[in-house]
């Protein structure tokens, strides 16, 4: 095994203490999305490494991360998970049938961290974004500084290096300068993390959709998050909804333009494909000349979730027809959610709302109860905490 001795001595050769009996382990991707979400929430977002001294080794950091996970007891999110194991990046490339980067490698035993200058460890990021989606060709060379004692201070690639170590890989690509001046640690860190352009929610959606397309074309498994982006893109295309970057002045206020893709993705995951698709369709058809209002879709999803009427096509049609009686203009998309929220805030004398989707869903219920002429038994939305529900009434003609 290529795990550091300090790790195997405490956690066991096959990480028994961390992952449990080998025969009971299953792969992360075999879990349901819901189970993945539950476990994901249990992964500590952030692990402090400052208590490990001024220059902890990467082995010490990995030990601390594993220790924090095992301390969670029955909430340890890795218990029962079959982590992949690779001897090296080349071995990962072979096993996964993927190309790898052609870079000079350094041994992970030599890696240390300038704890004052580097950020702490974001553990959820390591597992969710790297370990469970591992592709050796994406382990780009990091950046660092080698001092006269032979220690390599990692100023970029802390997380991917730790991810590689978790997967058993003991050599990672890293470019470094040779110096004893800490000055370079700060400079390297700032150049990469402060002066670089961050990825926007729109960019995430755009690239995930494209990656799903190219993965399908190349015969690779599609990443589950990419699949969601791709599924959403199909629904948006069918409804002629244009997803754009926030602040795009050329098209930002045009009909059916969606700038809140980050929120939309969140809602899609929460309510699932079927309900999300229906809510998006209703919203797009109701207000075809409005900027696409994600808040309407959010409230519609929450409302649809509670309905028990078996004919969903009829249900969606009647919701649409009833709302259209009240908001007859195609450009009134903003009105639906804003008037509901205003009524709720005014009548409850609050400036901010909790349970926003439930508030909007309750407003939609009042509208359909008033304006729908079909014989449908509408179900009320459920307040997450009954004691803290809002009472409000829309003024309807």
């Amino acid at each position: 095994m290529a795990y550091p001795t300090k790790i195997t001595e405490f956690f066991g050769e096959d990480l028994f203490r961390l992952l449990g009996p080998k025969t009971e382990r299953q792969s992360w991707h075999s879990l349901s999305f819901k189970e993945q979400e539950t476990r994901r929430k249990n992964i500590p977002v952030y692990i402090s490494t400052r208590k490990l001294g001024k220059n902890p080794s990467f082995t010490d950091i990995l030990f601390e991360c594993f220790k924090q996970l095992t301390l969670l007891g029955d909430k340890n999110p890795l218990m029962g998970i079959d982590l992949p194991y690779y001897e090296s990046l080349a071995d990962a490339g072979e096993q996964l049938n993927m190309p790898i980067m052609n870079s000079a490698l350094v041994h992970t035993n030599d890696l240390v961290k300038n704890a004052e200058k580097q950020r702490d460890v974001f553990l959820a990021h390591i597992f969710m974004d790297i370990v469970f989606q591992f592709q050796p060709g994406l382990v780009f060379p990091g950046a660092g500084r080698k001092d006269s004692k032979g220690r390599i201070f990692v100023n970029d690639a802390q997380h991917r290096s730790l991810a590689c170590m978790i997967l058993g890989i003991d050599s990672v690509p890293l470019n470094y300068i040779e110096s004893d001046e800490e000055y370079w640690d700060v400079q390297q860190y700032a150049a990469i993390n402060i002066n670089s352009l961050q990825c926007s929610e729109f960019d995430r959606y755009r690239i995930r959709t494209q990656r799903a397309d190219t993965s399908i074309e190349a015969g690779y498994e599609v990443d589950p998050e990419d699949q969601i982006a791709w599924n959403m893109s199909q629904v948006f295309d069918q409804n002629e909804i244009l997803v754009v970057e926030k602040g795009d002045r050329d098209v930002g206020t045009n009909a059916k333009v969606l700038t809140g893709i980050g929120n939309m993705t969140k809602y899609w995951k929460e309510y699932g494909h079927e309900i999300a698709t229906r809510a998006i369709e209703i919203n797009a058809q109701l207000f075809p000349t409005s900027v696409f209002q994600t808040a309407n879709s959010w409230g519609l999803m929450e409302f649809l979730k509670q309905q028990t009427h078996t004919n969903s096509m009829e249900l969606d049609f009647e919701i649409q027809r009833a709302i259209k009686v009240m908001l007859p203009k195609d450009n009134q998309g903003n009105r639906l959610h804003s008037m509901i929220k205003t009524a709720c805030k005014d009548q409850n004398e609050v400036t901010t709302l909790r349970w926003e989707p439930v508030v909007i869903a309750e407003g939609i219920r009042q509208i359909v109860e008033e304006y729908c002429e079909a014989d449908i038994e509408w179900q009320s939305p459920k307040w997450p905490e009954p004691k803290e529900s809002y009472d409000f009434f829309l003024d309807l003609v």
Partner: protein
Amino acid sequence: MCNDFERVNKLIQEKKDNPFRGLDDATYINESVWREFAKHRNLKRVRVLDLKYKYRWTDEQVERMYAKTEDGWTDATGVYRMFDFGKGENKVCSEDGVDRQFHEPQHDHIVSRSEAKELGWTEKQINDPDNIQYISAIQNLMKNYFNKEQWETVSPTIASLFPVDK
């Protein structure tokens, strides 16, 4: 036609009883007026609220204007014509024509703006409900074309130009 008042009055009453149910700014000015309308269902009030925004009236001024505004007017031949107070989708006489002139309420400065200015009135006084009345469009039209002396001179000849069909 202007003698179609019975049908127009009936349509106006029907619209009062069954107003447009949609939230539409052309019909209900804004969301606040819509909410108020949902409570009172009063088209005359919507029309008065139009003046509230125009002249920045207080609630007291709105109430004063509403209280003094009649639901219609009776012409010189004794015909009662309801005011078509609805806006947008609630408007009954939406096409230009003689009937519209007789049923469309228009707000009128009792002492005209120019005369009031000459008298040294402030803008607040000029636009106070005490100096504003709703009259029909036809009355307002006449008022625009004639001054008091001209109207007294010409009006007795108008009926003879259009003898009533017996």
